[in-house]
């Protein structure tokens, strides 16, 4: 077991540039055992209702929360300059992290008490796919929508994905909605993402530099880098991901099961401040103020106009037009179980996990919908009564009760 983890950490590589061959490696060592091992790792009952009704004294007030400098992390970041952590008695340092692999490792090392992650990451970490298995929980989603496919200016005539054979695309991480949405999108247009195009893992800030250098033809990446590519006159926005799946989750607020169990009151206070900040961010009228608060060097380190275009949805598309899409990015904390199930179906579909997957069980363990719902109601926001629903993705229905059949229903896939 240790050998495998050490090896896979090594293989994961340093520069994040390597292609998707790591996945074949996982296949070789047998990722399928992970799902079976899961049940023994997770104390099911302890997880449920981790948030208490009454808050006792905080076990810990000084916290380190990691973030990757992208607009998806808006609520986690802006909660600092705009005083949301303080409001709940917490002294939080928000720490900028260079990439997702390091964010994951620093979380596993407990250098971070909680962190901004991609929604598939807590699932993958809990399953031990690509890292040490460690029970992680995701009590809140950060943003929905808010990503885009950007192509190099040279490809202005190639707007039909069928013309993309041989293209090289960047995604920020393997276990990301970006990877899964890009795969889904090209596969729906008849391209096999493992054969017909090349998908490379590239940290977001390097995307724009690589696009300029012509090393990649495009990327599906988080903002502000989509808008930054336009602002730098290197690329144009081909499509917003909301056009693939309206309301898809993207980034998340996650922490280890151990942190929540050991510090229930602190965990409760932190979750309240995050959900409060997320709801505040979802209001259009607050977006300009937020853009100004998170643009400085200490946070995103970007020109204010770029952040503003992302958050307000009034943006230059790079093709000479000004688009007005107020929900280009939106913020909604509720972690639907069905979102987790969809992500797991895609992990299965593309061979990131193998064997029998207990979709519903894993979803319930990691995506703490009941915690989020409770806090949302307590703070006076509407929360859904159920935790699962079906989705319409590019005209195809996803039925959360039939995940295995859904995986099998795709013509292109490995699962």
């Amino acid at each position: 077991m240790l050998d495998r983890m050490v090896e896979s950490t090594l293989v994961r590589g340093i520069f994040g540039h390597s292609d998707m061959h790591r996945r074949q490696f996982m296949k070789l060592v047998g990722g399928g055992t992970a799902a079976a091992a899961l049940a023994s790792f997770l104390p099911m009952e302890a997880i449920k209702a981790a948030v208490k009704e009454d808050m006792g004294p905080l076990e810990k007030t000084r916290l380190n929360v990691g973030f990757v400098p992208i607009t998806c992390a808006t609520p986690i970041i802006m909660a600092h300059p705009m005083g949301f952590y303080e409001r709940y008695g917490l002294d939080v340092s928000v720490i900028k992290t260079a990439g997702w692999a390091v964010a994951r490792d620093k979380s596993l090392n407990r250098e971070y008490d909680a962190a901004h992650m991609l929604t598939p990451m807590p699932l993958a970490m809990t399953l031990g796919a690509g890292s040490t298995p460690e029970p992680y929980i995701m009590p809140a989603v950060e943003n929905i929508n808010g990503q885009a496919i950007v192509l190099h200016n040279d490809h202005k005539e190639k707007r039909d994905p069928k013309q993309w054979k041989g293209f090289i695309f960047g995604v920020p991480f393997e276990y990301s909605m970006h990877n899964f949405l890009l795969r889904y999108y090209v596969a729906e247009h008849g391209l096999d993402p493992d054969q017909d195009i090349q998908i490379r893992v590239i940290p977001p800030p390097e995307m724009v530099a690589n696009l300029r250098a012509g090393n990649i033809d495009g990327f599906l990446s988080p903002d502000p880098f989509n808008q930054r590519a336009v602002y730098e006159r290197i690329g144009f926005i081909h499509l917003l991901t909301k056009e693939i799946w309206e309301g898809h989750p993207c980034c998340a607020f996650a922490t280890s099961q151990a942190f929540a169990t050991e510090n229930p009151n602190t965990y409760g206070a932190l979750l309240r401040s995050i959900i409060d900040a997320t709801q505040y961010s979802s209001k259009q009228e607050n977006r300009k103020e937020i853009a100004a608060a998170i643009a400085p060097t200490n946070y995103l380190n970007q020109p204010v106009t770029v952040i503003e275009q992302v958050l307000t949805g009034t943006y230059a598309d790079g093709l000479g037009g000004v688009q007005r899409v107020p929900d280009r990015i939106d913020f909604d904390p509720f972690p639907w179980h069905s979102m987790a199930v969809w992500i797991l179906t895609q992990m299965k579909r593309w061979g990131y996990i193998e064997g029998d997957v207990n979709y519903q069980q894993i979803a319930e363990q990691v995506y703490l919908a009941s915690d989020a719902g409770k806090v949302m109601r307590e703070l006076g926001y509407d929360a859904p009564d159920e935790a699962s629903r079906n989705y319409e993705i590019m005209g195809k229905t996803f039925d959360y009760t039939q995940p295995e059949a859904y995986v099998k229903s795709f013509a292109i896939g490995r699962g």
Partner: protein
Amino acid sequence: MDRTTTEWNLSLNMRATLVALVLLVVGLGLWEGLNQVPSGGNTAEMTEYEKLMGGVEDTARVPPPSDVIERAWQELSNPFYDAGPNDKGIGIQLGYSLYRVLTGYLLAAAVAIPVGFLIGMSPLMYRALNPFIQVLKPISPLAWMPLALFIIRDSEASAIFVIFICSIWPMLINTAFGVAGVREDWVNVARTHELSPLKTAFKVILPAAAPTILTGMRISIGIAWLVIVAAEMLVGGTGIGYYVWNEWNNLDLTSVIFSILMIGVVGMLLDMCLATVSRLVTYEE
């Protein structure tokens, strides 16, 4: 005759300085001249699209040296400001990097020099350890990072470990080489005086091998300084490497060029320190 030689030398130095200055001025002038923002024609009201795009100019350019000098002035006039965990002055960042480099480097020296002595004095140990050294030496120090993060479980200590592992090899090999190359007669003289092995090591071999050891230490400090930038770009948080990464994130080439210069200057200073020390231990046979 002596006089003319000195005068000729003096004028050679002066001429070299002159040429260097001319190269500098011409280089900076070309760099400045070729990267000017085209002027004029921009008085008309910008459209909404142009405003969102930040103007009408449409090609990216390398920032001219005047911008870099201006940025350097800004940064160096307030090098120790601290505006939160992700925004600190250049002096603080360099301080973090130097602290990591020196800690890792000194730990490496503490291990490499005794082990190097052992290998250099004992053909048996040389043969026994050589295969390990040969395999471990060519590994890129950054390749250790994922493993270090996993085992040490601390990103700060992992960065120091990476410095340790990259600076150990030149010191180890040079020490072994220097110790093994001490002239046989000197060791024999020590033996006839019935010096203990420990005394021989300190009184005879150490002074004799010191210049070679110092060369290894000088190579090591250079490598350590090269590696810290990459390690900090990877792990982030603080240090000059983080500073470069953070400005790259913002595609701010002016700051990147400024930090490149700072990295060069600090690296040169580190090298000069070691060069001074190694001059102290050189001897003529």
